[in-house]
């Protein structure tokens, strides 16, 4: 089980959280100019990397806030935790 550092509540066990999948997927627009391929990409295509992954987590059984996590998908090490709407801080470990 992961130990996740909620930026609002501190370190808590993974079972308190919900993983919301890949972060930083932008909705394409404007609506009328988006073709089916771009919608499919937005809805379904995922990076699914072996290595660093940026993903959204929800502290569901806690403060109910969303935030971003950069995590290694092989070692499960959490490399950074950062707020929604921000990009991953480049100073931390990883790339």
């Amino acid at each position: 089980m992961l130990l996740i550092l909620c930026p609002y509540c501190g370190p808590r066990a993974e079972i308190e959280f919900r993983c919301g999948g890949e972060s930083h997927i932008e909705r394409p627009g404007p609506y009328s100019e988006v073709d089916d391929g771009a919608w499919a990409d937005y809805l379904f295509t995922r990076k699914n990397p072996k290595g660093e992954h940026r993903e959204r987590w929800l502290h569901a059984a806690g403060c109910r806030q969303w935030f971003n996590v950069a995590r290694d998908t092989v070692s499960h090490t959490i490399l950074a935790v950062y707020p929604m709407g921000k990009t991953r801080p480049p100073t931390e470990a990883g790339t």
Partner: protein
Amino acid sequence: MGTFSFGSLLRNAMAGHKDWPRQWRAPDPKPAYDAIIVGAGGHGLATAYYLAKEHGVRNVAVLEKGWLGGGNTGRNTTIIRSNYLWEESEALYDHAVKLWEGLSHELNYNVMYSPRGVLMLAHNIHDIQVFKRHVHANRLAGIDNEWLTAEQAKEFCPPLNIAPGMRYPVLGAALRRRGGVARYDAVAWGYARAADRLGVDIIQNCEVKGIRRDANGAVTGVETTRGDIATKKIGVVAAGHTSVVMSMADVRMPLESFPLQALVSEPVKPVMPCVVMSNTIHAYISQSDKGELVIGAGTDQYISYSQTGGLHITTHTLDAICELFPMFRRMRMLRNWGGIVDVTPDRSPIIGKTPVPGLFVNCGWGTGGFKATPGSGHVFAATIARDEPHPIAAPFTMERFVTGRLIDEAAAAAVAH
């Protein structure tokens, strides 16, 4: 290599089993092949076998980064059934069930296919409605599936607890009599041996690191840890690592890879007559011929390539098993492991061509592809050989995510197998 027969078993038994020959060769890679299959799991080996047997494409290599059958094929709980909801899936999975029935004979290898019945438990009104809908849909498609009351379910599987006071009472069950289990490593070995006999090179400890392409984008070969190999056709059958391999040809996939776990108990005398699954409380169980209870758990919620899952996932499943089968409460669990499963948004596989000429993919079997092994290999081989989708595989192209013609099997496939 010889053919297995009563005579050969007898002769070797008399000789103390010391004279059995190797069952397949360990060849070095040739400079070029007509087709290369990436991944020597059951699906990849079956693909190579049917390419050689039914399409006369014998100059084939199967490249495996580890040992053959060491991926999900060797990690799964081997439940076989075809009671999926949509006609496309019913056709695909039932194609496999029909091949399972003659597979030991076809491969001259005992895959220990045992159609002992698969019982899927309903614990709430929603389950009842969904399962009855499946029963009716399956009957229309000519696939046996029947609805049982809780008492009938207990009669079919005596260890089952149907006491009304349970946290999640058993309200009924769908029974697929032709469903069952098979021996996972015999499936991998049987296909490996049969493919090898037809001239297929199975090359283990050979990881594909890159995919080479010409100016038009068509594939020209692969780069591996054992050197470069030329080919004009590549079939990627890499399960949990599909996104990684496909990214070598700049193809992005609608896939996410999650750990899925299973565990086995100490061996005991025969006690479980069938397979029991519960999607709602995340548990499924059967008994192997060795006597171990084989128990399947759920997936972790995050992407992972670690082949291990969280312990809380398995303990959650054991809670459910103890409630469903109180007599197993004092059994000791011997081993627990994980495999990395590649999950699509609609829980149906992707089989077919890709935007890259010469590159084919067979993936997205997620938590439930073992049952499809023979059928998957069969239709994928036809797709590669003819360069157009086999009719049964045709609905399962990647384009369905663009056209919107999804084959949503979340109710039939998610969590359970």
